[in-house]
């Protein structure tokens, strides 16, 4: 077998071999399947989404049902634990497993909605700054700097406290606070796309700026945008948990993982599992989202940039 000869399609068909070159999508799919981080991240996200969607079916108990008789029951692996309450109960006698399952709804809901608001604001700003440059860019860059200078958690806690804590308020406050990374990334990518020939071609063909942005620029931003979206969902979930932990986020008795850690804090000495369990849930979800985001970046990156 002679390996130094270049095999072309014609030569291959002469020899009776069918050569099929993979399409870009097939190549991407192949590298997705090979990317461990991507696979782990995607699996975690799918499991948590299923958990949230099927919460009423999966949860063995009502997550809100309180009962003095069942207070502080141990988990199934501890002494006197039972399968009735696999993860035990909290100080109000609520089933911990059910609260963890329902807590995924809060995390995902807030994570995604905050991300949508932040993405809308940040992408618009980044797109305009990157495309028009000049004064527009100066203004946007200035706004980004101002935003970064504000201590996000502190401002969020203060505003939520003053407006009254509720899921809706948390979503809006966080959404209006964490658009910075979208603006930074989209601005930079737009600046890279703008001098491309296909943008110049669209301009030469007389397309309107609006059309160029929608038909030429945005589709080429999608890869980066999806990566940032994934990472920002993680950031929003983390911030929601922090806010709820500080008592200025989702209000009791809603089952939020951050709030559950906060409520368990006073039993830290004797019942540390009440802290570790929601923490692990949070950690696994955040880890999955981060791995997924990094994975998408690696998989969609052009060849040789892994």
């Amino acid at each position, binding site marked *: *077998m*002679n*390996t*130094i*000869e*270049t095999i072309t399609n014609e030569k291959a068909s002469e020899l009776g071999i069918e050569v099929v070159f993979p399409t870009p999508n097939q190549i991407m799919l192949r590298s997705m399947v090979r990317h461990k981080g991507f696979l782990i991240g995607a699996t975690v996200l799918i499991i948590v989404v299923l958990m949230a969607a099927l919460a009423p079916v999966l949860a063995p108990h009502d997550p809100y049902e309180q009962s003095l008789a069942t207070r502080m029951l141990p988990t199934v692996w501890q002494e006197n634990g039972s399968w009735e309450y696999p993860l035990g109960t909290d100080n109000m006698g609520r089933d911990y497993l059910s609260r963890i399952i329902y807590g995924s709804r809060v995390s995902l809901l807030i994570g995604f909605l905050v991300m949508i608001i932040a993405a809308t604001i940040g992408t618009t700003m980044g797109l305009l700054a990157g495309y028009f440059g000049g004064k527009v860019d100066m203004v946007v860059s200035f706004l980004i700097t101002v935003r970064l200078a504000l201590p996000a958690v502190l401002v969020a806690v203060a505003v939520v406290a003053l407006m009254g804590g509720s899921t809706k308020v948390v979503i809006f406050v966080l959404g209006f606070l964490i658009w910075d990374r979208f603006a930074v990334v989209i601005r930079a990518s737009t600046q890279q796309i703008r001098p491309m020939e296909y943008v110049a071609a669209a301009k030469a063909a007389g397309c309107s700026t609006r059309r160029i942005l929608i038909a030429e620029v945005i589709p080429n931003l999608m890869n980066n945008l999806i990566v940032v979206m994934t990472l920002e969902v993680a950031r929003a979930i983390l911030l929601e948990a922090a806010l709820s932990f500080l008592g200025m986020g989702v209000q009791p008795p809603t089952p939020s993982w951050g709030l559950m850690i906060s409520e368990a804090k006073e039993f830290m000495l004797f019942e540390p599992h009440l802290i570790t369990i929601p923490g692990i849930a949070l950690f696994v979800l955040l880890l999955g989202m981060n791995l997924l985001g990094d994975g998408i970046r690696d998989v969609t990156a052009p060849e040789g940039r892994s």
Partner: protein
Amino acid sequence: MKKVLEIEGLFVDLDLPAGTLQAVQNVSFSVDQGETLSLVGESGCGKSLTALAVMNLLPQSGRFRAEKMEFMGQNLLGLKESGMAKVRGNRMAMIFQEPMTSLNPCYTIGNQLEEAFLQHRDVPSREARERAVYLLEKVGITAAASRLNQYPHQLSGGLRQRVMIAMGLMCGPALIIADEPTTALDVTIQAQILALLHALQKEFNMGLILITHDLGVVARMADRVAVMYCGQVVETGLAAEIFNNPKHPYTRGLMDCIPVPGKVEPGQKLGSIPGIVPTPIGNLHGCLFRNRCQYFQPKCAAENIALIALGPGRAVRCISEQINS
């Protein structure tokens, strides 16, 4: 003439995701004092890796082995990194292709010139500074003393390449390896730098290995030439012989690509070599040029072709009768 560098049977392998690339295969050559040897070939033919292997500066994915690698009578094979560091920049210096990025942006020209000297000579820093000024003047930089305090980004590409040459000369090397030293420069600057290299080489009686793909440069500078194709030397000889009487079909193809005033009519198409260079991965045998060669015959693919000596210092890697008759 005293031999400065003698290489025999050099192989360089690069580990790539697709397999092991046999970038350099069984390359042998030598350089004498005051002599210029030119390694010529297309990009990717292994000429730069040959030089990096001699300096032991191959990238992490690369390995080399050789039967003989002797520099100034010293065996370089099996020399540890610390031993090799004593040779590098001292008696053997290298000048790179990219003057714009080959200098550290964080340190002054003076600092970077002097550190090579201070590394190899136990001298006070004042002496290193004097040497740097002397050599900057030698490479034609005016106001040398004040240049020492400048940073690379303040100099033009041509000036930076002059600084790189001065840096190579700091310890008075016996051999300079110049890897495409003028490729990144403007044409007028190219001529100046080449003239400078040539003059310095004669003045200090150094051996020079000039790596280039530019046959015009070879014609002006080289005493001897080794033409490389796909990791192998396909033809060697004195520069005049190679230009006047190219033997190997590849060398001939290269010569046909040069426009010669008076010989080429206006509007006449220049020669080109059809086909693409194969990637030397896997089990290689036969002539590597055969898929592009007009003299191809079945035995070209069957056996490995050795360099056939045609005379003293002249050899060609081709078995075609048309070539050798």
